């Protein structure tokens, strides 16, 4: 019987071609949209985790409350002891200390007077220890445009755009005018060791990276740090694990009465990341729902048109004694085949286009004035969900469309059939 239906579909292309094309286009779009949005949002999460949030981050309670200002006067003190505790209690995690700093970068002329200057924001990370993986984590080596990674505490990397604006080259001396953690003015000379392209407009405008030991001296932050970032060994963010990890840490170390006691926050709790993470989950549901509704309406209409075209055939089948229910079921079985074919083809097309877009689209030109931490290249990402996310809605929408369109069969009156056929 199934072969009979299949033969019918193959021989009468007008019965199957249009619905298959419609389902294929729909499923392709669902797979592509899912891969694109997943890729872009997950890239943002990974990028923010590497540069700003870690998978978990430890700060003082008051620093956490004012974290948007990166207030080093509220930094953690006695961090060498805290780092030692963290490394012994949670050896599987990777712990790194970072200091976010801002200031004016002043370039002297041959007389030591200001030649040019501009505001910048920087990140102090461990660049000099043998065990540090920060260079790799921040992709610094590959992002270098000129020069090299700092090899001494008082060397600094400037964003290539910022260096160009200040007219400095590797080897030149710049003076960082900033504030110590006690609020005093700090004036420190650094040698530019290289220039870098961060790939995000906000950082490329005035970003810098220096070794944490040099910045500690500059900002009078001996045994202090703004933030301690923790990374899971897998490199992947796991929200459930991070939340339980943070709860355990805060229970042990954090004191709500002491504004300078350490507190651990998960990636989700920082930098509006929770919105992004929720968006990734919601988006899949939203596109599937929209797809099923829209496709069902399109296929319902297509089924109605097909029903009109096959009006005579249905009439004849009923006239020779075929039950309405049997005809209805046969239409639904046909739609399952159509849905299967369209979903398979659509999934394949969707995966193909997603793999093309996984190479990335450069949008850095559109983000010149952006202040968001976003990468300049947006890439799609094919996840396991891409293999089935479009498949089932494609099938469901086709069947649903046929179920709605086929209801008309039950409205036909047997008594009228021969009159209709004679006509």
């Amino acid at each position, binding site marked *: 019987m199934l072969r009979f239906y299949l033969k019918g579909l193959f021989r009468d292309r007008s019965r199957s071609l249009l619905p298959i094309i419609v389902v294929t286009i729909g499923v392709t779009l669902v797979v592509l949209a899912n891969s694109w949005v997943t890729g872009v949002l997950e890239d943002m999460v990974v990028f923010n985790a590497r540069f700003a949030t870690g998978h978990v981050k430890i700060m003082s309670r008051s620093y956490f409350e004012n974290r948007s200002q990166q207030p080093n*006067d*509220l930094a953690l*003190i006695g961090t060498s002891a805290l780092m030692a505790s963290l490394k012994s209690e949670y050896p599987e995690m990777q712990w790194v200390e970072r200091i976010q700093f801002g200031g*004016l970068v*002043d370039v*002297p002329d041959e007389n*030591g*007077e*200001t030649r040019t200057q501009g505001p910048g924001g920087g990140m102090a990370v461990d660049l000099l220890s043998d065990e540090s993986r920060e260079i790799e984590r921040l992709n610094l080596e590959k992002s270098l445009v000129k020069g090299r990674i700092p090899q001494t505490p008082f060397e600094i990397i400037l964003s290539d755009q910022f260096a160009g604006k200040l007219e400095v080259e590797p080897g030149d001396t710049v*003076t960082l*005018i900033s*504030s*110590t953690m*006690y*609020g*005093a*003015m700090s*004036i*420190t*000379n650094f040698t530019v060791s290289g220039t870098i392209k961060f790939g995000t407009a906000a950082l490329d405008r005035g970003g810098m990276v220096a070794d944490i030991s040099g910045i500690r001296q500059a900002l*009078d932050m001996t045994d202090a740090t703004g933030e301690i970032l923790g990374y899971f060994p897998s490199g992947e963010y796991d929200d459930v694990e991070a939340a339980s990890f943070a709860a355990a840490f805060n229970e042990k170390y954090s004191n709500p009465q002491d*504004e*300078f006691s350490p507190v651990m926050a998960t990636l989700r709790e920082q930098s509006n990341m929770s919105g992004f993470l929720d968006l990734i989950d919601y988006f899949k549901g939203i596109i599937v729902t929209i797809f099923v509704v829209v496709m069902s309406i399109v296929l319902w209409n297509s089924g109605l048109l097909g029903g009109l075209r096959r009006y005579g055939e249905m009439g004849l089948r009923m006239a020779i004694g075929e039950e309405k229910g049997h005809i209805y079921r046969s239409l639904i079985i046909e739609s399952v085949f159509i849905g299967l074919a369209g979903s398979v083809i659509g999934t394949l097309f969707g995966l193909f286009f997603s793999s093309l877009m996984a190479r990335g689209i450069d949008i850095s030109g559109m983000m010149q004035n952006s202040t968001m931490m976003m990468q300049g290249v947006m890439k799609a990402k094919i996840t396991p969900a891409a293999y089935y996310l479009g498949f089932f809605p494609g099938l469901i929408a086709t069947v649903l469309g046929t179920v709605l369109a086929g209801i008309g069969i039950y409205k036909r009156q047997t008594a009228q059939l021969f009159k209709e056929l004679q006509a």
Partner: protein
Amino acid sequence: MTHTIHMTAGLLLITSIAAAQPSGKEILDRIDQNMSAESRYVKSKMIIHGPRTSRTIESETWAAGESAFTEYLAPARERGTKMLKLEDQLWIFSPATDRTIQLSGHLLRQSVMGSDLSYEDMMEDPDLASKYDAVVTGSETVDDRECWIVEMHAKTEDVAYQKRKLWVDRQRFIPLKEELYAKSGQLLKKTELSDIQQHGSRWYPGRIVYKDMLKTGSGTEFIVDEISFDVEIPEYLLSKAALR
């Protein structure tokens, strides 16, 4: 008849109070006579009470008119840092970097060595009468001293604080308390002056506590260890040559 006598007595009382109360302008002139000088030398300590720790910074300052030169003596991190103000310009010399940086724009609003004082505060001309209109709004006792309450409004826009409120000692004409406001009316800073000492014909505070109301911490104590008025200041000390 009794009614007329009461009225006359009341009027006489009001007139005598009005006669005893100096005008705002007169009070500001008397304050300037105490606080301003042709030139002065001050050796001072600044104790900054931060939210977690207190730090003491020692310095020497030579000032004449609108020019001032300060050299920091302690702690070790700040020793040798020099600051020069020439009219409305300010330079800082950092010995560690061998750089002289001119401060302008928003940098002038930064705190001096992490204290509750900004560079803008330090650059302010101490002469109040030329910058502000003043009105006496009442009287109050501060530290057991009878004070006039004087409200000052800036004559021009180019001052750090558009409104100031002073509690001025009625006898010595020295402020004992001050509140500094932004144009919006927000209270920005409070100062308390104490340990008032006589130096010749003038009165001058030995201790001033500044509190930046927008900062955490318990304020900054400015303690005058040594002060001399109308001293001879070598010309080079108030020039850029003194910075290196």
